[in-house]
């Protein structure tokens, strides 16, 4: 049974139709790559699956059970966790508070800062991320470090469905490898369903089991990564761009 199924989801913002009719599914231990042009609706789709937006039509099934997500909190309680494109870090808070934001460990009514600090250090060390001091404010981190913290936060949250919106965007080559290795580890564990939004086709094919393309609010392409190639994906994406140029 698929861990996550999206059926006939549509979403409009005023006059703008972001999603027309989206159908997709992901299994446990599977990594699904979601490709598409800018503005194709990828981020909207992610924000619907994680409970941030509510769909106008269609439904979402988690482990075969239809769920009406009431909010991000609700989705999180069902094991759906997200690394957002904007990372959702609070600059004024320390790295370890960011890592446990809205999932704070407590000792009675007070924050268990010592525990959170230790766990944050362990998680980042396990990932191979180099952040010397987890008590510094997030404002002081580099772009790559911020991304790593945001990914670490979701990965170590016991998520069973993990959504990554452009997780490699601000990454240098070394940091991107850290994230890709982490995704490979999670896949090997076999109990997490992963959806990655990516721009870089080569990276997507390297880490994903299956690739979907979202175009004009629909999934227009669904094939195992092994059966496609960067050339084919580029050929699929570029004409749509050319078509639109011609129309314009």
């Amino acid at each position: 049974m698929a861990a996550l199924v999206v059926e006939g989801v549509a979403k409009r913002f005023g006059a703008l139709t972001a999603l027309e009719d989206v159908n997709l599914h992901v299994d446990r231990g599977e990594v699904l790559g979601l490709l598409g042009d800018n503005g194709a609706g990828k981020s909207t789709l992610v924000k619907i699956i994680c409970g941030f937006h509510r769909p106008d039509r269609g439904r979402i099934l988690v482990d075969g059970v239809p769920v009406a997500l009431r909010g991000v909190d609700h989705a999180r309680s069902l094991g759906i966790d997200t690394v957002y494109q904007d990372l959702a870090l609070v600059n004024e808070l320390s790295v370890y508070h960011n890592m446990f934001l809205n999932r704070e460990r407590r000792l009675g009514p007070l924050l268990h800062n010592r525990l959170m600090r230790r766990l944050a250090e362990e998680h980042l060390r396990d990932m191979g991320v180099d952040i010397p001091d987890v008590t510094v404010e997030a404002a002081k981190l580099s772009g790559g470090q911020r991304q790593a913290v945001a990914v670490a936060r979701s990965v170590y949250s016991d998520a069973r469905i993990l959504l990554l919106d452009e997780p490699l965007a601000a990454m240098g080559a070394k940091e991107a490898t850290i994230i890709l290795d982490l995704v490979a580890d999670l896949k090997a564990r076999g109990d997490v369903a992963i959806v990655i939004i990516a721009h870089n086709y080569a990276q997507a094919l390297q880490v994903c089991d299956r690739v979907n393309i979202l175009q004009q609010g629909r999934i227009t392409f669904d094939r195992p990564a092994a059966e496609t190639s960067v050339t084919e994906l580029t050929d699929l994406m570029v004409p749509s761009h050319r078509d639109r140029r011609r129309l314009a």
Partner: protein
Amino acid sequence: MSLAVARTPGGAALARRAWDGFVRRREASVLVVAIGLVIYFQAASPLFLTGDNLRNIAQATAPTAIVAVGIVFLLVSGEIDISVGMVAALAPYLMHYAIDFYRVPAVPAILLALAIAAGVGLVNGLITTRLRVPSFVTTLGMFYLLYGVLLTTSKAYPVAVPEPVKGSLQTWLGAGDWASLSWCLLVVAVFHIVLTRTRWGLHTISVGGNPLGATEAGIRVNRVKVGNFMLVSVLGAVAGLMEAFRINSIDPNIGGGTRITFTAIAAAVIGGTALAGGSGTVVGALLGMFVLAMLQNGFNLIGVSANPFFLIQGIAILVSMIANQYLSRLRRTGRS
């Protein structure tokens, strides 16, 4: 020998780290100013550090510092409340109406006044978050609305503190020599811990620092904001009741108007709380309020007219805001 050599740089490094830690604290600059003022006024007038005068300063500090604590929470979560002074003026009247017109016993009447204040905060919060009216405008409207309610229901006459609250209740809740300062220090201590060491504090900072990010992390942004509107209103009512007990009369002009509100905002800002949200300190607001109270008191003692006081207060606000901007830029670039 080699041990001593090794220890010296270690000690210096330790001292340096302690100094860095001190400078990095937002309360540091206002603490230095407060200590400087104590030294200056004591040198200028030997009466400054006498028990009687310290009590004067404490009584001038306490109610407004309590309001400033609430203001800090609201500013940190990215909102502002300018109606809180009117809540402070209205609360003792609500107690008086309940006791003298509806025969409610003293303690329930006080709790009722606090509950109605919480209701005012709830309305402020809901209008701001649900209807998306900027909080400055929401609470400006609420300020005039409450002013109207206050003047209409009281006919603008002061009244005596109701008989049932007189005695030990009145002494404990404000009339006692150090009662108001004790409550103030308790409120500051509790809410300092709430802001720095609890989930509510962490979420308040997140909501003000990165509202979208906080929403994405599943924090109920509106709920946190509404809660802080209610907090500041209740603390405003506490301050108003305390003042009424202390001066032994309920007066529509005490605390009322804009004075408590603006002084509390000034104390918060001088103490190192940024208006933009995301950062602030409760202890700093208390120190800021001490500085303002000492300035007013010290000027009186050394015989300077009270009129230039506002000049100094204005300069203090501007200087601390400019320093804040500069310091937060330093922090962002990581050199602090």
